[in-house]
């Protein structure tokens, strides 16, 4: 942890390999999750080109180790707020792949009933309190969730914590500043995680942030920051656990930066022309999935056969998810006005386009 009141840390990023005590089952579980996300996202891209999915669709390709490491650090009772780039988080948090895919397909069985789409996955059961499409928009509500936790729970091991994800580019928006300041002044049990994939659409971090060492940006609020290799699932999990612990036991807001790479364009329709061939070559080398697979096999935590079995199972799971989504019903058009309000009141206008406003 960097204590911003002492001299800021610099130098290389801390990376931890799996400790010897790391359980093989746990590791293969992570491999399963990372593979599931990878295949899910690839299939989502494909389904987009087939027009099964519409709107914007942002993928976690390249961020699988970060996703799985972060989710492994959370307890089921913790709360998670994410951005629009959140399919993987929903999956790793335990949402049914078929329901995630169904949401992308805009089906009634989707995680948000088909109303939210790719950017707005929500799952009360797993305390995934939303994907959010407005950059930075999730940060104040996440902070408020932490306020509600603090309102009800004293600091301690049993206290819930909130994790709020944001992109590197989102650190430049006012909501980031206002929220971190509130969390610091009110001492809220929240961990802000900057998922630094080096780019906000086409803009590199250095072009957008006056302090490009993003984990240091808690300094304006005395919020301790740490940077971790986002391609190392265990390192991510450990760093996140430490931060969550501190949030739980001290109601001390924390800042964590994971560094990884977005393997494709910003969204599925972005050809990422701003990247050179050399960039793309480098990216392929940085891909966390084959690296993790090789490492597990190397270290004997997984044999090649098991790995292949996991790959196949994940493939099947995703295929089943696509199939289920494809056969799921679209929301009934008569449900158009459902959920606009939670408490019905008099005189709510429910006209369809072209209807008279007043029944004569």
């Amino acid at each position: 942890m960097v204590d911003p009141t002492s001299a800021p840390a610099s130098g290389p990023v801390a990376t931890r390999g799996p400790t010897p005590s790391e359980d093989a089952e746990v590791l293969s579980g992570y491999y399963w999750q990372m593979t599931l996300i990878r295949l899910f996202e690839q299939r989502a891209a494909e389904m987009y080109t087939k027009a099964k999915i519409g709107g914007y669709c942002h993928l976690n390709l390249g961020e699988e180790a970060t996703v799985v490491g972060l989710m492994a650090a959370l307890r089921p009772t913790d709360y998670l707020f994410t951005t629009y780039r959140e399919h993987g988080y929903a999956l790793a948090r335990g949402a049914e792949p078929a329901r995630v895919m169904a949401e992308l397909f805009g089906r009634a069985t989707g995680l948000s009933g088909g109303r939210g789409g790719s950017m707005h996955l929500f799952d009360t059961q797993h305390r995934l309190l939303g994907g959010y499409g407005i950059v930075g928009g999730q940060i104040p509500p996440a902070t408020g969730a932490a306020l509600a936790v603090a309102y009800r729970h004293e600091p301690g091991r049993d206290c819930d914590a909130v994790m709020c994800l944001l992109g590197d580019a989102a650190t430049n928006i006012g909501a980031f500043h206002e929220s971190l300041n509130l969390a610091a002044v009110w001492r809220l049990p929240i961990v802000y995680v900057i998922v630094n994939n080096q780019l906000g659409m086409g803009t590199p971090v250095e072009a957008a942030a006056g302090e490009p060492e993003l984990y240091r940006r808690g300094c304006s609020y005395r919020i301790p920051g740490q940077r971790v290799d986002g391609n190392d699932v265990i390192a991510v999990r450990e760093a996140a656990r430490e931060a969550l612990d501190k949030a739980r036991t001290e109601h001390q807001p924390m800042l964590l930066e994971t560094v990884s790479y977005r393997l494709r364009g910003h969204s599925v329709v972005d050809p990422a022309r701003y990247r050179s061939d050399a960039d793309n070559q480098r990216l392929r080398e940085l891909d966390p999935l084959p690296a993790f697979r090789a490492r597990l096999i190397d270290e004997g935590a997984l044999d090649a056969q098991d790995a292949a079995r996991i790959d196949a199972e994940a493939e099947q799971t995703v295929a089943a998810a696509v199939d289920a989504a494809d056969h799921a019903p679209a929301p009934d058009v008569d449900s158009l006005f459902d959920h606009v309000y939670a408490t019905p009141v008099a005189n709510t206008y429910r006209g369809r386009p072209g209807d008279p406003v007043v029944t004569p």
Partner: protein
Amino acid sequence: MTLISYRQALHDTLRTELLRDEDVLLLGEEIGVFEGSYKITAGLLTEFGPRRVRDTPICEEGFVGTAIGAAMLGLRPVVEIMTINFSLLAIDQIVNHAAKMHSMFGGQVRVPLVIRTPGGGGQQLAATHSQNLEVWYAHVPGLKVLAPATPADAKGLLSAAIRDDDPVLLLENLALYNTKGEVPDGDHTLGIGTATVMKPGTDITVIAYSRAAVVALDVARRLDEDGISVEVVDLRSLRPLDRDTICASVRKTSRAVVLEDDWLSYGVGAEIVATLAEGAFDYLDAPVRRVAAAEVPLPYAKPLELAALPDATALTRAIRDTLDATRFAGQEDHR
């Protein structure tokens, strides 16, 4: 019934709700130590402590968004935005977040949030501090927008808002805080979404809300003495809008004027007139006039401010003009 001020009614209601429900908490700038810019929250920090009555730094987007998140977890935050002018800094959280969450997330989360905020000009606070922007919020599905004109309605609507599970914007008005009225004792909540006929009448309907409704009532009472019978409809709720009550009144009186404190073009009155143009088409004897603010950033200098804001005189003129325009339509002369 007790005669108290609009300010007192709001204060007492907040206190009652804080006592009634442990999940209710207040947030806002200067609501605690300073006791509120307009003193609505006076004494509440002392009584309930900083857990329930929370001073916030100056960060409208941050603390409104924070209240949204707290509401998602089941608290019932009542936020004070010092004036509606500053709500612009929080509008992304209000409109893109609070208003959409229940629907966009398929009904899985509720946002029982109340935003109290005063609007209004006439205090020489100049262009950035004198606006009436409630029409913006009234345009947005997912929000409920209330605008009480009397102390009793302030109580009834604020209680209703706090107990409602949707985000509610409750518009107050600087010019109303010191006005007095009879307020029902004990529990008193009003149904959200209903207008009220403040004063029945037969010649013409004046439709208004918030401060303007009080002005309208005053003008109506004075015109009574001239033998002009004005019905006054107080909208109370801008969203939902009680179109039936408005149309029923004008179907009866055949004439109407809207009094509103916002700018004329694309203001609240536009929707009222459009509603009447459809719902009372066959009944209207004259065009519905809108008495609204002149379309200028409100100047500080008093004579300019007075010239820009709608008042009793302008309303009276519009009423008389409307009646004049129809006096040959089978009506007696009202001059």
